[in-house]
């Protein structure tokens, strides 16, 4: 955390990856080319452990959606969440993260889950309902009562804080 480097070499990043599960990750990939670190270990990284969407983040970067990351996917995750990544790329993955049920739409169910994670379920059901409805009303351009990626991107591209908040520093 708080590392001042902006560009990592393979070794440094792999060091971080190796740290997560020293018993699982080999230093030499010739024998076991597809090793993966399970979700539970990645989620406990200090950079992620406070994040209410940590499971979703890891899951949306894993190929199978189960949250086990190979080193390539691990690198992928931090490259998207780095400062250097462009807004469009971040938007694509943000959409995936908030899409809890992986149906390529942010429907009300997804929004409710998002909101409950954001507020630690301190809002009453009515309030949650209201907020979700308002969100959909604001951002839904095609009137199907759920947010497609186009809707989401349109909304997020105008958000003033998106770029400054949607990145992780390792």
């Amino acid at each position: 955390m708080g590392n001042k480097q902006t560009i990592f070499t393979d070794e440094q990043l792999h060091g971080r990856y190796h740290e997560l599960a020293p018993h699982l990750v080999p230093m030499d990939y010739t024998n076991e080319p597809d090793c993966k670190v399970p979700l539970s270990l990645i989620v406990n990284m200090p950079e992620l452990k406070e994040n209410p969407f940590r499971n979703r983040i890891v899951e949306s970067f894993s190929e199978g959606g189960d949250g086990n990351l190979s080193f390539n996917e691990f690198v992928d995750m931090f490259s998207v969440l780095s400062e250097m990544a462009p807004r469009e790329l971040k938007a694509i993955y943000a959409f995936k993260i908030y899409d809890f049920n992986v149906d390529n739409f942010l429907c009300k169910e997804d929004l409710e889950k998002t909101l409950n994670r954001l507020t630690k379920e301190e809002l009453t059901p009515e309030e949650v309902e209201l907020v979700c409805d308002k969100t959909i009303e604001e951002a839904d351009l095609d009137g199907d009562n759920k947010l497609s990626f186009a809707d989401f991107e349109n909304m997020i591209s105008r958000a003033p804080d998106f770029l400054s908040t949607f990145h992780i520093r390792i």
Partner: protein
Amino acid sequence: MSQDSLDSLVTSENDIDIRLDVDDEYEQERQSGRRRKRRRRSGDKKEKKKKHQRRRSSSSARDGREERQTKKRESSKKQREKHFKERTTERNEEEAQTSSVKATKTNKNINNEKTRKTKTAERETEKRNEKKMDKSPKTIERKESEGKNTDKSKERKKHKKVQNSSDEEKTKEESEEDKEEQEELDKEQEEVRSECLSPEELEKLKEAVDERKKLIQSLRVKPWPMKKKLVSLRESQEFVEKYEGALGKGKGRKIYAYKVIMTKKWMKFERDFENFKTTLIPWEMKIKEIESHFGSSVASYFIFLRWMYGINMILFCLTFGLVMVPEALMGRPYGSIPRKTVPRAEEASAMDFAVLWDFGGYAQYSVLFYGFYNNQRAIGWLKFRMPLSYFLVGVGTVAYSYMVVIRTMARNANESGIGDDNSFNFSWKMFTSWDYLIGNTETADNKFASITTSFKEAILEEQESRKDDNIHLTRFLRVLANFLVLCCLAGSGYLIYFVVRRSQKFALDGLENHTWWERNEVNMVMSLLGMFCPMLFDVISTLENYHPRVALQWQLGRIFALFLGNLYTFIIALMDEINLKRKEEMIVKYNITTWENSFNGTVSENSTATPISLHPADVPRGPCWETMVGQEFVRLIISDTMTTYITLLIGDFLRAVLVRFLNHCWCWDLEAGFPSYSEFDVSGNVLGLIFNQGMIWMGAFYAPCLPALNLLRLHISMYLQCWAVMCCNVPQERVFKASGSNNFYMAMLLVILFLSTLPAIYTIVTIPPSFDCGPFSGKNRMFDVIHETLESDFPVWFSKVFSYASNPGLVLPFILLMVLAIYYLQSTSKNYKEANVKLKKKLQMQNEENKKKNKRAALKAQMDLEEARKASSQQKHVSPRRHQDVNEIHCSRQRHYYSKNGRNPAPPVGDRSLRRSAPRTYQHVNPGPPGYLPGLPRQSETRMHRVPSLQRH
């Protein structure tokens, strides 16, 4: 002979091509040519893969092979030409190329004859669709089987053909993939012929290589998984490496290899350099650590502090390098003239710590203050123009500060211009309020709380049902609060004025007779006011019951007013003191002149005697008011700094320690309850910093040491505050947004800069400098130094030109012109802004219209569906034809659904025709992203197929 046999040979191979082309022509006659090309490309893709295998074997044979391959294809084209005359235009070009190459190839073709014959026999047994694909593999096979056993080659061929058929499936999918892929294939095709290229094809190849390069560069931005990125990167790098060299031919290859190595080295160097640059940014590490604990708003304060440090560094360099060092090195040494010597009366205590701490004694008579500088025009062997330099540095610091602040403001304004509309209030809260940087449990808890409150606030605002039940009471309370605040402000102003006047009285009595408190009263009172008044305002503002954001603004405004009021009272009191000093100076001056006259008189009486030389310490001198002003500012800065640090230590550190350790033996929870830990007050700290800077700007002219002092202060507070934040603060609950507020701070800084330069300029312009101290002594006004320099240091014509230019007849029109220009620019910018707003409105309207339209369409589709359902339920028993109709309606609805969403969701069925025929009306509705999200099942499928096929080479 070879041409004919070749033609007949390829006929069967081309049959399939032709047949398909005819099909195509039914649909789109014009596109058919292009399509065929594409098909060829997909065939060539396999060719390329094979080629990778081949590459290893022998590079010397390559050239010949490729030529043959080309020839083959060209001849096949010829054959096609015979059948379809209408497409001649395209092929004519290619034919022209072929004919030029033909002559050189005939020899080699004879060698191939044998193999080709075996091939034709085999081809007849194959299925037609296979034939389409293996045009290129066959040619390869042919070459490989040269001089070998034909049986073996046959076997191998069969094996390859199986592969080819599987490859064909892939190509089908791949043809749907990104355009780049297609282009890649295109390039592959061209590159095959790279040895015998016509100039235009060379051009094409060059373009292809360029495109590849572009792809490499933009790869990072592509939303693909890392695996795919790696694969395509490797691929395109290989391509570029291989064929860029081919472009250069022969000699170019070496140069190219050298170039490649150099670029690789350069990239690595750039990478390292980038990292190195980051390590050079001061305190980056600390700030990022804070950012990851406290979120971006607290970090914004430290970034602001660092920015301020940078500015002060420049100011310091100016004053130190151009004023202090030259004077110390080249000016007359200490003790040579009266202004550089401690007066006899003060000599005894000049080295005392208390005196030095007050910047009296030796400190007063040093380069640190205005009074020390001599009015000698040029000093040292460099003929350094000291007074001029002093004046210009004074002006330069102010000008530089203005420039920097305004430039930063303009830049910030550009950045913050994006998200000012409020149409996505809830969505933004939902999707962007979590700060992914947060990695600390407490911060996270606070963030959760603040998000919850912000949602609740938004809900309340949204409902808007809450009306002030007692509006009169609220109004009364607000008026009362403002009245109280005004009282506070007036009281603090009066207090400062009173204290300053009293301190003058003390100063007249002589400082030695008074206690420490009485000597430092002014600064202490100002610092204490600055410390306690904001707290008082905070309490008062609870009366007002404003929305927290509004309340914060009021609070900031009030603190600003308080600081400003204090500063200006201080300045006014200082002005009084300046006037007093000047009166004193007049008396001293008069005394000195009379004394000198009498002295001269005595000297003239007995002119034989040597003139009595007084020791400089004994020479009577005036009270140098400039030095006095400088001293006051320095003391103010010192005491301000001290109060800040002490508040930090007591208010934050001690409190944190007490809360932490007394919590075990206390009757209530100290951490959660009353004292708890202190928050980091971003806005208050920023304001403190801004006012501190204002004082620097104000006093820097009279005390050149001020920027240096400030630099020291900022440096220390950087470390101290970083430490304090990390060890004893908790993050704010109500976060003052960093992104939106930056310009607010900058605006305050600009106001302060303006207000602090005003008095400085006023004193410079209106008050004549002291007669016996400072670089401008003896002049009527300080800015006369410019005039003097112009007259004596520049040629006559220059000063003449200058005097003409400064003629009011020229200056006035110039000012007028500037005003006009400003007016013009302002009005145009206003127009632009209006246009912007209009466009925004239009956009919104369009959005809403689209929303409505889409809703209507959706409704209609639903109605249709229901009707259809009804119909089907009514006539379940009738003919199956009905069912078909219903199905069609379903289909049309589905189609509509696709079009509505502006993207192709992962198709549940491989129903490509449906998607292709979907109306494209949505394109103007959603100017959104390309039709799919990366990594959706559809794409990952193709990837799965693709990867192994690529890994073969």
